[in-house]
């Protein structure tokens, strides 16, 4: 039980996907201008990543390893993730056209999001079982959402601030992201308690 807790906590805080592993920066910078879109993107990625992580584990352990096809891992994972993302896009377009329009190109880009491929691969390398895979995927995506929401909140404030002309927009965004990364380094100490 505690090992499950540590997996989730580790994925959310200690090894945060965006701020510690530095994966998935594309939506982190691109969709975080407003809080609502950041939350929407986080929710979509959570769904994709959790499902993707679990499905990838199943495909890997039942289809690829028994048939000695480990070299097809990347290919198979990408195909699965692409299908899941497409499904998510269809659902979002139906239920919330507003979110669909605002997320725009970033929704299908979840397919090529390095976090969404990286987490299943990392999951395999950490030798988790099925339940642990799901938790790992879920925790990582919650960490992703957390980073996105924090960043969006900060950016909404930065919008009205007196920033020097050359720093406005993406530049100050990256500087802020870097400082957040530094802050999250503080969680590295939690590793000791595992």
């Amino acid at each position, binding site marked *: 039980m505690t090992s499950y807790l540590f997996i989730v906590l580790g994925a959310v805080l200690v090894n945060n996907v965006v701020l510690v592993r530095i994966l998935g920066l594309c939506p982190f910078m691109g969709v975080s201008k407003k809080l609502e879109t950041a939350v929407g993107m986080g929710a979509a990625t959570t769904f994709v990543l959790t499902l993707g992580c679990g499905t990838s584990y199943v495909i890997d352990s039942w289809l690829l390893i028994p048939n000695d096809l480990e070299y097809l891992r990347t290919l198979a994972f990408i195909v699965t993730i692409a299908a899941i993302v497409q499904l998510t896009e269809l659902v979002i377009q139906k239920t919330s056209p507003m979110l669909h*329009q605002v997320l725009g190109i970033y929704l299908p880009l979840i397919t090529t999001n390095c976090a969404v491929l990286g987490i299943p691969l990392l999951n395999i390398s950490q030798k988790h079982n099925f339940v642990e895979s799901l938790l790992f995927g879920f925790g990582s995506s919650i960490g992703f959402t957390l980073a996105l929401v924090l960043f969006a909140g900060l950016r909404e404030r930065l919008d009205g601030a007196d920033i020097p002309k050359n720093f406005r927009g993406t530049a100050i965004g990256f500087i802020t992201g870097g400082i957040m990364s530094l802050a999250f380094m503080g969680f590295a100490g939690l590793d000791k308690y595992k």
Partner: protein
Amino acid sequence: MFSALFVMALGAVILGAALGYAAVKFRVEGDPLVEKIDSILPQTQCGQCGFPGCRPYAEAIAKGEADINCCPPGGEEGIKKLADLLGREFKPLSGEHGVEKPKSVAVIDENVCIGCTLCLQACPVDAIVGAAKQMHTIVAAQCTGCELCIEPCPVDCIAMLPIAEAVDNWKWKYPVFDIAQRRAA
């Protein structure tokens, strides 16, 4: 080798079937985004953006065929709102589509008007009252300032008057002062 092909083909078939089913189940009709864009546009129906009205421009923006900075009556405010709605970058008003002018209404000089009804037919919001050989007059409250009536008039009797500031539409000024401007003044 065959097992690899078999595995990939299996994956493709299953996922393809799932997606096909989803595509049918979650089909979306229409495009509510156009409504949202149209509600931001100022509805002057003037055509300065290059489209025959505000709705066609909204549809073009939704499809991605038109840029968001083509509407002079909407001004900087309108472009900012569109940029916010669509998540696109803010761009200043493109010069080729016109400049932002102060809000005006059209006024007919009644001494010159000949009652030809050409301006009546041109007004996109039917703000001109009149009939053939009768005096024409513009209902100021309904005029959007699109200037489409000025061209058809054969005797050039229509002029644009900027709306004067009155006590009920007066706005408080922005309290931040530019020090450089103050020094220059």
